[in-house]
């Protein structure tokens, strides 16, 4: 009589299926035979109790015969100290998760690892937020790689970071990450690697990998990119064109410039005559739109279909102007950017030209144009619209523009000021940080109902320069009446400031290294 037989009888029900005394000549059998099997239900239950007791008492442990994974290799790098680990746990639990990249940066600098019990959480977070993957690789250590090798979801971790065999055998995600790192270290070598397997790659992989070439892009990439302009997959062609446009000396840029040059003519101004009998004429730009968007133009990255609200031919011209180096126009016409901008304002194509110049400035990171365009935007009170220009300026210039703008005590401009700040990148200089803090101190003593602005304050805390954190924690005028409104955003601001201070403090003291 077995437990399985009894279970079967129970499933069917004793009214349909009866059990009978077992025959085995064992002590258990003897006991079981003592039951009264005419009382079907009781017999079933009692027999079960006996057999269960028997099995529980006599249970033997089973053997696991599968091979045991080797234990993880020794760490070469020590663990971060306990305060840092506690902060990491808080971050991973969701408290101010936006500070995780900063923790990782500091850990990488300090050459310290995340504690073993936190590794799964760390790996899970980076699996879903791929922007964190590269930094995380630096803090998981040998143990993290050992652990990741046992879970297919973490295959992007790959083997050791210097092991090139990932390129041959890794998963697409791991290979993309590897390629990105390789481009940072030695772009030419990385390009060679990509070239070696290019023909065997799937279209999806080609699209993913070619966009990695954005990292460390340089003129040596041109031949590869030029041939990619003829790739079967549209996405690959598009990316190749976009990348070639970033190389001012490339053949693609020359071709587009040749096509675009005849389209615009700078009409020099005429000075007014004596006695004002002849009116002076300001300089202007004559525009001749292209007639068609032929195959050659498309190959060079010009999209035939315009977005909403822009004419087809104007769109083709604008795209060409994005690519033509801005210095070409100043040389060609022997003028300054300011004069070209002023000239663009006259005539029916003012809107299109300004958008084209702005976009070109940002794409080409040309700051000689960025400053005058931005000044124009300020004058026109259209700063919001042109804020992308801030990215074309070098950091120092950008910060100068913004702190200047913040200094204008105009209360109606606060949300513009706030949105410009968010364009100002992740890490502010000490100077800009202090400028922002001063601006915030003035802001928080004024009356307001702008809850959207209030909710942005927390993000500013993330961008402050670390040296300004202790100043940021103090001297807030909390006893004046307007604080009540601002406190909701400011409490969060202060919490972020506190946590960042804690993180910096955790890595700056000499950590006690747990034995790796």
């Amino acid at each position, binding site marked *: 009589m077995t437990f399985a037989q009894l279970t079967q009888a129970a499933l*069917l*029900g004793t009214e349909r299926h009866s059990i009978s005394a077992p025959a085995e000549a064992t002590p258990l059998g003897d006991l079981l035979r003592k039951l009264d099997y005419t009382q079907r239900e009781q017999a079933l239950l009692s027999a079960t109790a006996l057999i269960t007791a028997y099995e529980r008492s006599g249970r033997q442990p089973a053997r696991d015969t599968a091979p045991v994974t080797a234990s993880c290799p020794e760490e070469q790098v020590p663990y971060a100290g306990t305060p840092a680990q506690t902060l990491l746990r808080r971050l991973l639990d969701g408290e101010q998760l936006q500070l995780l990249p900063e923790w990782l940066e500091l850990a990488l600098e300090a050459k310290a690892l995340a504690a073993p019990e936190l590794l799964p959480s760390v790996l899970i977070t980076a699996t879903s937020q791929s922007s964190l993957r590269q930094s995380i690789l630096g803090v998981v250590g040998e143990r993290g790689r050992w652990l990741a090798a046992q879970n297919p979801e973490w295959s992007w971790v790959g083997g050791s970071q210097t092991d090139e065999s990932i390129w041959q055998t890794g998963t697409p995600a791991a290979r993309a990450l590897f390629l990105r790192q390789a481009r940072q270290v030695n772009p030419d070598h990385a390009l060679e690697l990509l070239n070696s397997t290019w023909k065997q790659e799937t279209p999806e992989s080609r699209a993913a990998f070619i966009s990695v070439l954005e990292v460390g892009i340089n003129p040596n990439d041109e031949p590869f990119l030029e041939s990619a302009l003829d790739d079967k997959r549209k996405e690959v062609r598009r990316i190749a064109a976009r990348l070639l446009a970033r190389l001012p000396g490339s053949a693609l840029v020359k071709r587009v410039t040749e096509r675009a040059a005849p389209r615009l003519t700078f009409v020099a101004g005429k000075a007014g005559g004596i006695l004002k009998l002849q009116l002076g004429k300001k300089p202007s730009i004559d525009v001749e739109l292209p007639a068609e968007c032929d195959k050659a133009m498309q190959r060079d990255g010009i999209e035939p279909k315009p977005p909403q609200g822009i004419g087809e031919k104007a769109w083709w011209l604008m795209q060409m102007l994005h690519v033509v180096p801005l210095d070409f126009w100043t040389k060609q016409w022997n003028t300054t950017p300011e004069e070209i901008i002023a000239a663009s304002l006259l005539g029916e194509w003012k809107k299109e030209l300004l958008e084209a110049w702005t976009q070109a400035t940002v794409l080409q990171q040309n700051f000689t144009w960025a400053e005058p365009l931005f000044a124009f935007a300020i004058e026109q009170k259209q700063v919001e619209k042109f804020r992308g220009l801030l990215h074309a300026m070098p950091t120092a210039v950008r910060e100068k523009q913004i702190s200047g703008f913040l200094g204008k005590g105009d209360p109606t401009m606060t949300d513009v000021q706030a949105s410009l700040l968010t364009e100002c990148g992740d890490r502010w200089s000490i100077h800009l940080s202090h400028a922002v803090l001063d601006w915030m101190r003035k802001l928080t003593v004024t009356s307001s109902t702008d809850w959207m602005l209030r909710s942005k304050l927390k993000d500013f805390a993330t961008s402050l320069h670390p040296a300004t954190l202790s100043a940021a924690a103090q001297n807030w005028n909390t006893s004046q009446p307007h604080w009540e409104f601002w406190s909701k955003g400011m409490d969060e601001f202060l919490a972020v400031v506190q946590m960042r201070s804690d993180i910096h403090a955790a890595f700056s003291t000499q950590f006690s290294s747990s034995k790796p």
Partner: protein
Amino acid sequence: MAWVVEQVLALAPDASSAKSGKELSAPRKWVILGATDQCAWGSIQGSGNNAYQVCIDLSGPAFKCTCPSRKFPCKHGLGLFLILAQAPGSLTETAPPAWASEWLAKRAEKEERKSESTAPAATRSPEEEAKAAAAAEKRAASRESKVAAGLEDLQTWLHDLVRTGFATLPGRPSSFWQNPAARLVDAQAPGLARRVRALDGITTTGEQWPGNLLAQAALLDLVHSGWTRMAMLPEGTQADLRSTIGFTLNQEEVLALEGVRDQWLVIGQRIEEEDRLRVQRTWLFGQKSGRPALCLSFSAGPAQQLDVSLVPGATIDAELAFFPSAWPLRALVKQRHGFDDSAKMGFPHDSIARAISFAAEAFTANPWLEQIPFAFSKVVPLRRTHGWIIRDEHGHFLSLEISDLKAWSLLAVSGGNPVSLSGEWNGAVLRPLGMWKEGSFLQI
């Protein structure tokens, strides 16, 4: 002993207290902060004009706060404790203020009085005594007959169950199980009621459900068989039978029994919600005797605090009084002599085979045991296709019941090397409680 953030947060009566406590763990929010080896104190601005005075007696731990919150510990106590765990340097004062030392002195007095012999009960006249005794006897007799009737009813229900067969059970509504459970509550057999309630939903627990249900049904039927033969059973089994039904013993009666003094290692703790009741199981092993012990604590709501004095991973020098049983397990702390970090940690189970035979003894002696503690000195956690296991040096394994995230953490900390591990064994799977890595305890 050093307190860790996780231990502190485990004291929170609910999730919102834990969150509020974390918000108050910023030292800048506190006006005064200080600590000695025995206690920590602080003063914090509350809403409005008053400042709350907060104090923690670290030997308990026990909390005092002047805020009006009914929760225990309140968010101020938690916040102060978190500061102690995370940023002890902020506790700058070294001399306790008057209000803190007064409270601590009162507590010390109370402890002393407790350990002295309990004061005699209010004197009653012999007639009153006789009357009280007679009333108690009447209540007891009434309960016995209610329970007897309830068991008959249960047996009838169980027999019906196996007669009609389990195949018809999937799809039965909840009331099919809740109704007989409610009848058992009426019959004053709450222990049995709980077991019957737990069967609700068993048909959805996987392929093994018919066998599991049959085993549970047989165990319940065994209670009935035992009850009708009560007088013939050994005393320990009688006690187990009554406890399974839900008879409780007076705490004073148990504390009056002889205690077992030992260095008790707290190998783990688990809190489970049952209906509206929170049950905390704390497992201990005596370092000298190798005996297991289970201390239970209950909380019916956020105002009632679970006993936090038995800290997982700590070793406690104490005298435990055990509830009578064929395999004594449940115990009360009779007398406590403090934490003892000095003892070298010994784990009772040096192999899986040994643990299994330990379990065999337990389940044979008390078939109604639901889980027993295991504490291994050296096992390796491994991942297999059917789930997670631990394996010892002889190649034996046990299946783990554990969430994936926790299992990966376990694997990460072990690094493929053997670790010391504790857990609850129910006869089929081990639910891990904690692990030790280089002497420190990590809650799983």
